[in-house]
């Protein structure tokens, strides 16, 4: 197992854990937490590939990861604002009860 492979496995693991959380937890905020974990796992992937790439001086991976962090932060802010707003309406943050879009 090369170092890169190790990091990639770890990233995959964290990604799967984040996905499991997003899919199974009932609280909306927990879903967001799962999403943050997934994003982080992706960042780890990026940095790992940048480090072991043939031309790290191009900074491609690093830039990608930095922008990803920025976007994740923005998204977390908006998402949590939404959760708060929904909580004010429905008095609950339970995703299983948010089915007004039911077909």
């Amino acid at each position: 197992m090369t170092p890169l492979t190790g990091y990639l496995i770890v990233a995959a693991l964290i990604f799967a854990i984040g996905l499991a959380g997003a899919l199974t937890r009932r609280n909306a905020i927990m879903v967001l937490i799962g999403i943050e974990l997934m994003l982080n796992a992706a960042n780890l992937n990026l940095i790992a590939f940048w480090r072991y790439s043939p031309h790290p001086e191009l900074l491609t991976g690093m830039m990608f990861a930095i922008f990803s962090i920025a976007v994740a932060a923005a998204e977390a802010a908006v998402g949590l604002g939404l959760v708060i707003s929904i909580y004010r309406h429905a008095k609950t943050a339970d995703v299983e009860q948010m089915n007004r879009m039911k077909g």
Partner: protein
Amino acid sequence: MMQEAIAFTPQLDASSIARWLWLIPALPIVAAGIISVLKQPRRRLASNLAIGSMGISLLIAMSAFVHVLSGWSNGHAVREVVNFSWLTVGTQAVELGWVLDPLSAVMLVMVTFVGLLIFIYSTGYMEHDENYTRFFCFLALFAGAMLGVVIANSILLLFMCWELVGLTSYLLIGFWYHKPSAAAAARKAFITTRVGDIFFLLGIVWLFAQTGTLLFYDRGAGSMEPLALGGLLVHHSHWGLTAAGAIGLLIFAGAAGKSGQLPLHVWLPDAMEGPTPVSALIHAATMVAAGVYLIARVYPLMAAGAIAPGTTTALTVVTWVGASTAVFAALIAVAQNDIKRILAYSTVSQLGYMMAGLGVGGVAVGMFHLITHAFFKALLFMGSGSVIHGVHEEQDTRRMGGLRKYMPLTFLTYAVGMLALCGVPIFFSGFWSKDAILESAHGWPLSHAPYYMLVFGAVLTAFYMTRQVSYVFFGEYRGHGHAHESPRVMTTPLAILAVFAVALGVIGTPAWPWFRAFLENHAASVEMHAFAEPAWLMLLLTSCVIVIVGIGLGWWIYGNKSPRADEPDALEKAIPPLWTVLANRLYIDELYGATVIAFYYWWAKVADWIDRDIWGDMVSTVIWLTNHWARLNKFLDATMVDGAFDKGCEEIYNGGGVLARIQNGRGQIYLRLLAVAVVILAAILIWSGRP
């Protein structure tokens, strides 16, 4: 005594009178048409139209007769035909036409003259009837149709007018249609003559098929001319008959119906239900004579191929039927009590004489008796009408009597007619015509039986006429009310006819056989020595004996006695069973009722059963099937088609419901699906390209 007939010389151009001959029947028919649209109150106009048209027809007929007569006296025969095509179908044409020859000329004059007299008589007789106008319409129509029969040169035209005569006879017999007996009598007449007409039509069709022409005379190509007759004799039909014989028998069947010969005579006595002028015109002078005239017209066909005169099969049948009818009807007439019924059976009997005369002696013999009979029988009928009118519509002779005191003129003319009918020698025309028949019958080569039958019939004729006259005119008056003489308009025609009943004998005596010569187209001269021939003297003696025996017997039994209506007749007291049989008209009507009519009732019931039960059941079955088929369809449609469709829709609906559960509005579930899709896609992408 018979001379060879010279063949008629063919006329290439019809004379002008022949060309206008069609007016004779046309005028009365047009008069009938006009009268039919008149309103009922216009009585005088109706009768005037009818009488006027008949008068003009008489004038034209007389001028035609004069034309033929002049031609005959100049030695050349007159037979002028005017033919024309009525319809053309491909190459065949339906030909109609009329003929002017001695036979038709004589008949024309007789029919128009007697018809005119009866028309005039009717204005008096039907004075109090409210349907006066309708009566004259039918009378005129009848006269026109009868005249059409007389002049027809085409057998089809003859048949058309024949049927029209039958129709108008039906209308006139059933004139007082409110009476059920009159309506039934009219029906009986029509149907019985119809039976004869079927055979007539078959004969017509066969004749046309065999000879190819409908015309009697057509410049050598007609069906009565030697060429066609020769062709007919060559073909043989069933039972050893030639085609000519078979066709002749078929045509005779039609004549037998119209002229009341033996099996088809049943309608004639019942036809007395009509008014007396109708009886006089139709059932004495004209319509019943149409049958005799028809046989006279197709005589060449009937006589074709005869070895001796009058010996073809057809003519033999005619003779036997005629002789049988003569005796048969005379027997029945003995036992009748209604004044007109006696005369009706007398007519049937005399028609038998005419037919027998045609059979044994030829056209002239039969036609002579027809002409004389027309006059004296019309006279007798009109006289009886006058009697009925005088005793206030009583028709039973047993309730009359002694009328010679109250109705002298009627009595006188009636007596003349009666004597003529009985054939009293020398003075009365009936003697001469009947004598000619007896003479020919005596000389018939095949058998003497008809002669004896005719003699016996003559005895009976004298007997029953004497009975009738003594009941009506002699003895005491047994009726109700007061008898009175009839008005002049009724008695004048009686007088005119009486004159003719006497005078017409002159044209047929053996000394001057003008009538025969005229019809057979040879010269006639007065030969008084013909009276001296032994054969003729024998005949004269026989006739005298007949008359004396008949009248004497009748007078001896019935004489001046006045039997009441409720007493049995003198003859009845003597021979009750015979009287019953005769009074019931030899049970012929009952026989028909039991056989033919009963058969038809049964057949009608069978047909009704078939229709009602079998066809009805079929229809019901079809209805039932259709009904249930419709129900089945409805079931299939509603439950299966609709059901299937509804079920399908329901399943789709449910499926939709199932699928809609995926759309549950829960983001987490969507996310799961997303992840699954990504996994699958990634798997496919990564490992699909592997070698």
